[in-house]
């Protein structure tokens, strides 16, 4: 369990993290979503005690990171940027980390096996592909068999097979009752992996809810209606306060559900050829949520 309270971090003029508060609970995969520059990586580094917060605090399993006796046995972390000396072999990289927390050599061999790097264990980590580096990072995170796992952009650079593998692994770790916190800018990936989402933009909390709830809550959910008398139905809907957009020969209605649209048409004797509720993709929900908080947005002329 991770508890973030009023956490803020300022780098010079840039407020990277702004009074963030949220909990990451065990037993499920929690996605940490936000556009580039939203403060995801900084928050992860604050959780791990690598950066010092400007104000606020964060605890892991009820204690500050610096107070953990053997951190690797409590929190495993895969950071976005490489944290490996390129001249050291994968085995020795894991061994020196393991030794610092009193973890034995047998566990080093085990984690190499779990991530499928046993055959490359004696090779220098500097020559690893991005995918192999991710696997090595994950091996380091699993060394202490920790109840809490943090992954910053874990699927970056992985091929489809690797993505499926990591998704399955993260879900199974959560199913064992662990706390799994995964940052990503890939909404579609999070839809498949995360049970719960924490959405941030410009360092601020935008949403903290289950994945399904965030999709449902989005105003990108609308009702699609087709009618031979579309223009008359559209006018009536607007009168009733709904927002109507003509699209591809149909009307996209927000602000009124299917029953309301159907009843209105019936009262006025308007024929209906299609009446369906459309669910936004997580992608659309995310765009909707973070529209005002994107640092760098392509301006449409």
């Amino acid at each position, binding site marked *: 369990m991770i508890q973030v309270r009023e956490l803020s971090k300022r780098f010079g003029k840039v407020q990277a993290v702004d009074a963030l508060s949220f909990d990451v609970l065990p037993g499920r995969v929690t996605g940490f979503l936000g556009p580039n520059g939203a403060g995801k990586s900084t928050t992860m580094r604050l959780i791990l005690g690598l950066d010092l917060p400007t104000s606020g605090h964060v605890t892991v399993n009820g204690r500050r990171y610096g107070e953990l006796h053997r951190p690797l046995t409590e929190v495993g972390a895969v950071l976005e940027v*490489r944290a490996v000396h390129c*001249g*050291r072999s994968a085995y020795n990289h894991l*061994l020196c980390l393991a030794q610092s927390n*009193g973890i034995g050599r047998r566990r080093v061999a085990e984690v190499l096996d779990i991530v499928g790097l046993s055959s490359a264990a004696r090779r220098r980590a500097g020559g690893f592909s991005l995918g192999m580096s991710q696997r090595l990072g994950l091996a380091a995170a699993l060394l202490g068999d920790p109840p809490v796992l943090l992954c910053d952009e874990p699927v970056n650079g992985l091929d489809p097979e690797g993505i499926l593998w990591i998704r399955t692994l993260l879900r199974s770790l959560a199913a064992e009752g662990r706390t799994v916190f995964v940052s990503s800018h890939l909404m579609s990936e999070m839809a498949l992996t995360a049970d719960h989402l924490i959405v941030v933009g410009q360092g601020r909390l935008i949403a903290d809810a289950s994945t399904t709830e965030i999709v449902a809550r989005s105003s990108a959910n609308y009702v699609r209606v087709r009618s031979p008398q579309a223009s008359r139905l559209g006018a009536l809907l607007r009168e009733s306060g709904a927002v109507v957009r003509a699209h591809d020969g149909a009307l996209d209605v927000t602000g009124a559900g299917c029953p309301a649209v159907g009843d209105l048409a019936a009262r006025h004797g308007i024929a209906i050829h299609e009446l369906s509720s459309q669910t936004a993709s997580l992608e659309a929900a995310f765009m909707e949520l973070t529209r005002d908080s994107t640092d760098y947005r392509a301006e449409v002329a």
Partner: protein
Amino acid sequence: MNFADVLRSEWTKLRSVRSTYWTMFFAVAVTIGVAVIVCVKWAQDIRHSPGTTIDATTISLNGIFLAQVAVGTLGVMVIGSEYGTGMIRATFGAVPQRRAVLAAKGLVFGVVTLVLGEVLSFAAFGIGQAILSGAHAGVSLGQPEVLRAVVGGGLYLAAVGLLGFGIGALLRHTAGALSAFFGILFALTALTDLLPTSWRNDVMPYMPANAGTQIFAVQRVHDALAPWTGLGVLCLYAVAAITAAAVLVTRRDA
């Protein structure tokens, strides 16, 4: 955190990268190589003009002036490369007590450098004296000040190595720290030479290399610090750099 675990980890780190072996190989080659070349040359000179007086101990230890480059570079790299590669985040993630990490790293590196330095110093002395004794100019460890100088050669290398380590930990950037290290060891002395004579003579003996090298000289140069005082001054530079790094390490983002 268990300090013995951190020491074990740092020992694994030091022995699992090639740069350690390359710099140590360089240190061995120059210390022994220079001892052979310089002593063969002096042995010839003495045969040609008997009666030449030399500091036979210091002559055989001349390679230390080159070996210090390798040892200091390794000192910078053991910490600089962690910052350069990002490994430091994994290190501080595993051991959040950052000062303990610096202490363990410095201790492991310091002990390894001291052992290497002593082995090299005694080897260079032995080889050098064997060559010089052919011209009846060799000295033995039993003669006054000689043992101190030979032990001092190893101590000097360890102190220079720790100075490099301290600068590396302070600047957290290998290239910058190497420049600063060579600047302090060599360029500072050259700049001091430009000072007005009266100041220059007061300041010069306290320059790190001038002060520290007195520990492996048997004949004292005029104006130079006493051997142990000189080594102490060099150690102060190293201690200052390491202390500054230890103060800042908990205040800076990794």
